[in-house]
């Protein structure tokens, strides 16, 4: 049985090797992160806008829509969530379009920790993961003990994936080591009794980090600390996911793979509502990180309303006619 501290030590050892330092200190991390090339805001936004002008032909569009559906983390994260609400969201995940059984299922259902068991039961053995937000989501303002307990609780209840938030306060005040240690500790808390581990997505809350330089640094820090995915936002802060932010993150995972050989996933979350939006993101994935990332294992959309629009567009492609919102089930 693995103990909770081992992977954390592993993370530090690995980080020391990657940074080429004998001791992982805050100043070593600062030097490393601040040594990353800067991001020019105007240039990054112009590139994202340029990628938005690509048009996709019909056969690729059908494929892209199905891919986008299979990449969705179908999400409900409200104070008003009930077991009933979560069960109906799960029903939607299992049967996204009752009129067309060939519609793929989303990758996961994303809920608060106390709803994991409900979601797990509702999904049964179906190939839809349960993702839980943890670590005092969305603000992350709690002690480490609480955050770890939050994580372990969700994992014990059957979560396949954990969406943690970083401590933006610590990041913005330059305490990178603290952010690193926290991610590494949560990573350890994702380990189950049988030695397997829940997938860890690291939410950077880019709307609070503000600059693209910060987004790039936070991305590298999260990857260094062992995050399986880097994720833009909680959905509780505006702006949530934007195309340029996602572009910068895709550059980060591309460069990380070049540096270490490891692939890390990317998840934009919040604010992606239409098929057109989703396809723009997929184009950006394709031309930035490359086609290897065009897979639910490496790219996800955190969204709720997006699924409805994708299904509507899918119906349009198969039937040739637009239905309307009443022909797509809500939830």
């Amino acid at each position, binding site marked *: 049985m693995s103990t909770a501290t081992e992977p954390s030590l592993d993370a530090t050892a690995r980080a020391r090797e990657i940074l080429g330092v004998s001791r992982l200190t805050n100043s070593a991390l600062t030097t490393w992160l601040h040594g990353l090339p800067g*991001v*020019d805001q105007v*240039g990054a936004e112009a590139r994202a806008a340029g990628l938005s*002008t*690509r048009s*996709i032909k019909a056969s*690729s569009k059908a*494929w892209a829509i199905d891919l986008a559906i299979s990449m969705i983390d179908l999400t409900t994260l409200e104070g008003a969530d009930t077991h009933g609400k979560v069960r109906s969201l799960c029903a939607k995940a299992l049967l996204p379009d009752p009129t067309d059984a060939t519609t793929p299922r989303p990758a996961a259902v994303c809920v608060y920790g106390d709803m994991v068991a409900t979601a797990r039961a509702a999904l049964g053995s179906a190939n839809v993961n349960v993702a839980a937000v943890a670590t005092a989501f969305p603000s992350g303002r709690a002690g480490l003990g609480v955050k770890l307990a939050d994580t372990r609780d969700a994992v014990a209840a059957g979560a396949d994936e954990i969406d943690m938030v970083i401590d933006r306060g610590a990041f913005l005040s330059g305490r990178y080591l603290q952010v690193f240690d926290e991610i590494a500790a949560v990573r350890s808390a994702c380990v189950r009794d049988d030695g397997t581990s829940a997938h860890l997505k690291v939410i950077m809350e880019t709307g609070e980090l503000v600059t693209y330089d910060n987004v790039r640094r936070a991305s590298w820090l999260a990857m260094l600390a062992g995050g399986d995915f880097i994720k833009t936002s909680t959905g509780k802060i505006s702006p949530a996911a934007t195309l340029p932010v996602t572009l910068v993150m895709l550059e980060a995972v591309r460069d990380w793979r070049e540096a270490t050989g490891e692939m890390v996933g990317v998840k934009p979350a919040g604010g992606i509502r239409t098929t057109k939006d989703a396809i723009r993101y997929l184009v950006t994935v394709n031309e930035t990180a490359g086609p290897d990332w065009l897979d639910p294992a490496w790219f996800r959309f955190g969204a709720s309303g997006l699924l409805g629009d994708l299904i509507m567009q899918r119906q349009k492609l198969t039937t040739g006619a637009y239905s309307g919102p009443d022909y797509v089930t809500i939830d």
Partner: protein
Amino acid sequence: MPTFEYAPAPESRAVVDIASSYGLFIGGRFVEGHGQAFKTVNPATEETLAEVAEATADDVDAAVRAARTAYTRVWSRMSGADRGKYLFRIARILQERAREFAVLETLDNGKPIKESRDVDIPLAAAHFFYHAGWADKLEYAALGTDPRPLGVVGQVIPWNFPMLMLAWKIAPALAAGNTVVLKPAETTPLTALLFADVLQQADLPPGVVNIVTGAGTTGQAIVDHPGIDKLAFTGSTAVGKMIARSIAGTRKRATLELGGKAANIVFDDAPIDQAVEGIVNGIFFNQGHVCCAGSRLLVQESVAEEVEARLKRRLATLRVGDPMDKNTDVGAINSRRQLDRVSELVAVGEKEGATRWDTGCELPGTGFWFRPTVFTGVSQAHTIAQEEIFGPVLSVLTFRTPAEAVAKANNTPYGLSAGIWTEKGSRILWMADQLRAGVVWANTFNRFDPTSPFGGYKESGYGREGGRHGLEGYVRTGADQ
């Protein structure tokens, strides 16, 4: 697993009517030319688009006389506010008919539709809007006391940005009260001829703008015509020198916007991903048919390998092909002649020992095409580092210190533009001060705006276009009356 297939998403050419033949636009109407009519082709397909009249010296004389009459009787007497109204009207019509112009420009020139749609035509309209605003405010432009128009202006423009160069030339000339005889390039006359239609639609008084088509001899006839008060030329340095020689000793003034061999300088602290975008935009925008193209990449040696690797990876995603496809990034070379010139210089580059690399992408079977090409291991001594290639070919050189970057950047007979990529603001200012180039871009490249003056040092020409400075070339002031 299927992959993303973007193409084809072709723009419809139904929006534009191309006549089978065109005359000359003189005195507000189309008249027949007396020279040998010539064909203009679509460089992407080699299909003939139309037959265009050639203006002889007599035709040019008729155009100059029409311009003189319009100048003395109407345009120079009109108030600035009224001239402004016409310019605003032209600008609005250009916007309304933008799609038509974009499609025609792409057909005649070979540039990607996304470029003519998003850059050329909107900027051309912006130039008219901008100068419309100046028409009644010339006295406040700090040009000198009592600014007055020069008279009849002869303008000769190139094929790389046909509509945009037309706007750069005509808008300030008209705003200042001059009348115009303009010659578009022989390979790309169609948008200028469509523009004549806009002038009629705007009810511009006959003769204020005259458009004569033809090749070098027509241009020479304009240059030599005694009724011309000022010449404005954009094109090659060789032709610019000929013009300067031709008008030496006459009262004619000239502004010349000529070639370039710009350095795009990347420091080790540059925002690398955006710098790579800027390098691509600097040299592969408009197939490299840009006088201010960043054709020499000067990269700091400590990051040269990384930049080169990232650049090649990025170039692999460039889509070369049908210019009418909205997903196309790089279109066709404008003419066989230009393709031959590019091929010839690339062969010289290889022979002189530089390492050639290209994307290896597939090219269409008909038309004039050249793969985006990068030369590494280039030094200042190489021909490809000195001569303007005017095609999608980048030469990569390295430097060690800022002073060396400046020395290499300035070590060219040209001096049109330069780019600096660094996150250090103080270095940008120092470099901009040292570089002998008319335009210096910092952390961007190939950005144009009507409010910003554009023009060169040394063999890149003299005079400025755009902005308040651009007006200076179209007025006389004070004692100069």
